[in-house]
């Protein structure tokens, strides 16, 4: 790249003010700004000042390229929209014309001026000030090269639900190694707990287990079940991840998955995770028969041997003596280039909604408990029965929006409860013939075949009451209410108060973020919103990426969604990862900090300011050095260095000071324009 430096040593700056149609021109007098810049900022090096309808259009860019070539511009300032939108566009234009892209500055006069102010004169005034700031700043820009960082082909997928499995399979199918980490003893996630799935009423296991087996046996997928990620270091393309394989106390090489140990184990425990507290499992268990991997796990707190030192039934009966009580947790460190987080959701705990009586009234069930009831491998082998495990309900009430769309709990809609409740209604009809009431506020059946399913359930005779249920109580007022759960609801269509006695109530509870979402977000260095859903790079245009390069999210971890969307996001995330791996390397923004060792006195004030520990101290030379690869460019150390020995590219002190001077040069009494120093 030829570097044009003109004789007087001043930079030759080109200023371009964009109309953006009327978005900017509607409020800012762009011509006046351009002419003002040409006149007032000439002595600062502005040689060209144009205004143009659409700077980001190819014509606009050619304008810049032409000027750079013909006028020998050494700096370019564009006053238009937000840098987050077109900074890359104008940098590319400069690069095409042979000017180092980092010598271009984009000043926002649309989002931060024309769109937010109402007074035309003030908006034009502010545009001039902001432009002047940009011009002063760009003088101090230095040519930079983006940092090229190699991408490690391996990928880490956290979370073995349907989204994680889909992502893992797609990346592995492309021939790249994948480490799939799942906290529970088996992959499958929430989907493995369901019996049927809407709207097609496919048996959930039938469509899930093939994918689980593919993931379990895939040559390129290394499965870490019953494991957790404990530490993540490094940056995009070069993550070092430490995985803790919790001790299963079963030797995976020897175990054949025959299940004898589970039969012989004398200790029965309520299974709170897989059976949602509705069924029992042994102290040594696999969550469900089709578990992948098939190896059981010993639940130490409940195992008689571990608590009292006796029993050891499983060890006696194990044909391949695969039981190994001395097995320790294992820490495995792996290198990966990209990470996909698909850690899923937790179910809202309806106990806090005391009016619905969950936990107090026996026959009130959560949606997950009902799923286990309907599941053939469930505690009741698919029989829909009351809490006593025997009686079939003659009437069932299904409540939508429990904990969703409710200011006291969660404002958002959990997307799947309506369809899930319709599925429940259908299953109750099919299996018990009981009368079914669905209590909804809005029926949300938005996607393919969803509304058709709703009409089908309507035709089956489900009674729909539009109203938010006020109370579920067992205090009968009339004889026919004795021994029943009475649902008190206002039927807003018929505008009448109803008291409907039913045998069983199912609460379609909301989806809430994982209880440890904040810790996981902190561990992976991505931001998660205050209520716990992980924040995507852009809600509409970039839902699977995050602000942190190299870390992607898929499925319900980003927010409530149904299975098709989770699968789609899993595939999307894997596509993004494969794109990265294909590139082989990634160009990182050259925003870095560097230490001038002659000025550094080794005072070590900056040493513990870097969460990415990019700052290392050389005891021998008593001098600090910053590892450009690890440095993310936040600039905290630049601001903290007492000796001013650390400088940061793209946001150096000189640039910011100059920008402040430029900004303040134009004050409101525009006739009293302070003269240049």
């Amino acid at each position: 790249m030829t570097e044009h430096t003109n004789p007087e040593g001043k930079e030759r700056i080109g200023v371009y003010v964009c109309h953006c149609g009327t978005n900017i021109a509607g409020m800012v007098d762009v011509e006046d700004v351009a002419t003002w810049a040409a006149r007032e900022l000439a002595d600062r090096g502005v040689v060209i000042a144009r205004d143009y309808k659409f700077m980001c259009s190819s014509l606009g860019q050619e304008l810049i390229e032409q000027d750079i070539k013909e006028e020998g511009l050494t700096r370019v300032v564009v006053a238009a929209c937000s840098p987050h939108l077109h900074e890359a566009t104008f940098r590319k234009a400069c690069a095409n014309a042979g000017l180092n892209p980092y010598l271009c500055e984009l000043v926002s006069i649309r989002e931060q001026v024309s769109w937010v102010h109402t007074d035309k004169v003030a908006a034009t005034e502010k545009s001039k000030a902001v432009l002047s700031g940009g011009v002063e700043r760009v003088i101090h820009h230095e040519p930079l090269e983006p940092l090229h960082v190699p991408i490690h082909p391996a990928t880490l997928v956290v979370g073995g639900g349907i989204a994680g499995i889909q992502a893992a399979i797609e990346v592995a199918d492309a021939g790249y190694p994948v480490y799939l980490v799942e906290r529970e003893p088996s992959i499958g996630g929430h989907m493995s707990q369901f019996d049927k799935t809407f709207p097609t009423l496919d048996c959930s296991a039938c469509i899930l287990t093939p994918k689980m087996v593919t993931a379990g046996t895939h040559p390129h997928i290394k499965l870490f079940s019953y494991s957790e990620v404990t530490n993540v270091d490094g940056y995009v393309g070069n993550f070092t991840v430490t995985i803790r394989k919790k001790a299963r106390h079963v030797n995976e090489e020897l175990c054949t998955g025959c299940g004898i140990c589970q039969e012989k184990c004398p200790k029965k425990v309520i299974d709170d995770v897989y059976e949602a507290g509705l069924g029992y499992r042994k102290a040594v268990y696999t969550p469900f028969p089709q578990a992948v991997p098939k190896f059981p796990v010993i639940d130490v707190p409940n195992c008689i041997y571990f608590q009292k030192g006796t029993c050891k039934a499983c060890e006696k009966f194990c044909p391949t003596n695969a039981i190994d009580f001395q097995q320790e947790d294992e820490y495995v460190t792996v290198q990966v280039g990209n990470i996909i987080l698909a850690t899923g959701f937790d179910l809202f705990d309806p106990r806090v909604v005391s009016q619905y009586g969950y936990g107090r009234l026996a026959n009130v069930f959560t949606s997950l408990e009902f799923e286990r009831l309907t599941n053939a491998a469930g505690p009741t082998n698919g029989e829909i029965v009351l809490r006593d495990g025997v009686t079939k309900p003659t009437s069932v009430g299904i409540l939508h929006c429990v904990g969703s769309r409710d200011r006291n709990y969660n404002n958002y809609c959990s997307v799947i409860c309506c369809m899930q409740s319709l599925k429940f209604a259908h299953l109750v009809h099919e299996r018990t013939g009981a009368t079914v009431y669905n209590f909804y506020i809005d029926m949300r059946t938005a996607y393919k075949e969803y509304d058709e399913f709703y009409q089908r359930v309507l035709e089956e005779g489900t009674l729909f009451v539009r109203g938010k249920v006020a109370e579920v109580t067992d205090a009968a007022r009339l004889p026919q209410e004795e021994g029943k759960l009475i649902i008190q609801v206002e039927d807003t269509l018929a505008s009448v108060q109803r008291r409907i006695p039913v045998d069983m109530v199912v609460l379609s509870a909301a989806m809430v973020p994982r209880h440890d979402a904040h810790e996981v977000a902190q561990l992976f260095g991505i931001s998660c919103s205050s209520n716990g859903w992980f924040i995507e790079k852009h809600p509409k245009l970039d839902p699977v990426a995050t602000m942190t390069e190299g870390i992607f999210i898929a499925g319900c971890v980003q927010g409530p969604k149904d299975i098709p969307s989770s699968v789609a996001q899993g595939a999307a995330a894997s596509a993004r990862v494969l794109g990265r791996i294909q590139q082989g390397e990634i160009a990182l923004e050259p925003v870095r900090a560097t230490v001038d060792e002659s000025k550094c006195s080794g005072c070590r004030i900056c040493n513990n300011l870097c969460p990415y520990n990019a700052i290392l101290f050389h005891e021998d030379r008593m001098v600090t050095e910053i590892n450009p690869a690890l440095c993310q460019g936040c600039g905290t150390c630049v601001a903290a260095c007492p000796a001013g020995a650390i400088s940061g590219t793209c946001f150096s002190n000189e640039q910011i000071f100059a920008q402040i001077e430029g900004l303040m040069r134009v004050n409101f009494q525009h006739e009293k324009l302070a003269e240049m120093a």
Partner: protein
Amino acid sequence: MSANGKPKFAMYWAASCGGCEIAVLNTGEKILDVDANFDVVFWPVAMDAKYKDVEAMPDKSILLTLFNGGIRNQENEAMAHLLRRKSQILVAFGSCACEGCIPGLANLSTTEQIFDAVYDSITTDNPQNYRPQYQTKVPEGDIHIPKFYPVLRTLDQVIDVDYYMPGCPPESHQIAEVIDLVIQVIHGQASLPPAGSVIGAGNSTVCDECPRQRNVKTIKGFQRIQDIAELDPDLCLLEQGIPCNGPATRSGCGALCPQAGAQCIGCYGPAEGVVDYGARLMSAFASVIDSNDPAEIEQILDQLPDPAGQFYRFNLAGSLLRAAKPVWKQ
């Protein structure tokens, strides 16, 4: 060149304490080299030369002028302009000339407050509450005294300065080296450093020369040095909670104070290329406070009762804001 062929040398002190003159004297025999190589033409504390003598000299006739002291009143400013006209090389000698130093701290008070402190304090016997009058009528005629400016300015805020020599006072060995350098320049054996650069000091900070052991800094609180029962002789003072300005102060003094068990108070001024000395210290100290809870941070900061004094003891006049708001409002 003066009559005897030796280059002329001048030294003047404006708003300062005179310690810099004594530091020059303190160079021991080196003062003889000065006399040998220079013709001292103007040095009010050492010889009897009057302003009109200087005015009589041709412009640029004085080779080297060491000007110490800030510009507090009209006379300082007049002499600064005069010496600038008369001297070839003018050095801002000492912290007062470079950055305002202790006299610069007066920029925190308005003129009225300063006069009250001086003419109306407990130790002053001034029943009639007199104040200096710039113009008084006496039988002999009108007497004028130099106008007292509300803000003390550093030398380079009044005239162009060729070189800066920080320190309060500059270390004698540094003065000696500078004198040798200038002598060599006279004899053509060396060339002058680039204009405007700092001489007589290092370009790192005091920590570089401090023998104490330095570890990662996490400050739980600040303490005054006299409140610490027994001080660890080898460990960095800042890590023991003593607010030591060493990390931000230019090296050159050999870290005399920290070696003697006292915290550095920053007399050698900011390091190379630093815009605001106090800002550097505020940022450094605050960044390593080991707490994220605002209330706890406030408690720790309460242990720094006088932040302006701590961070701007020497650099107030040379800082970005230079003086307190009421001073400007006068």
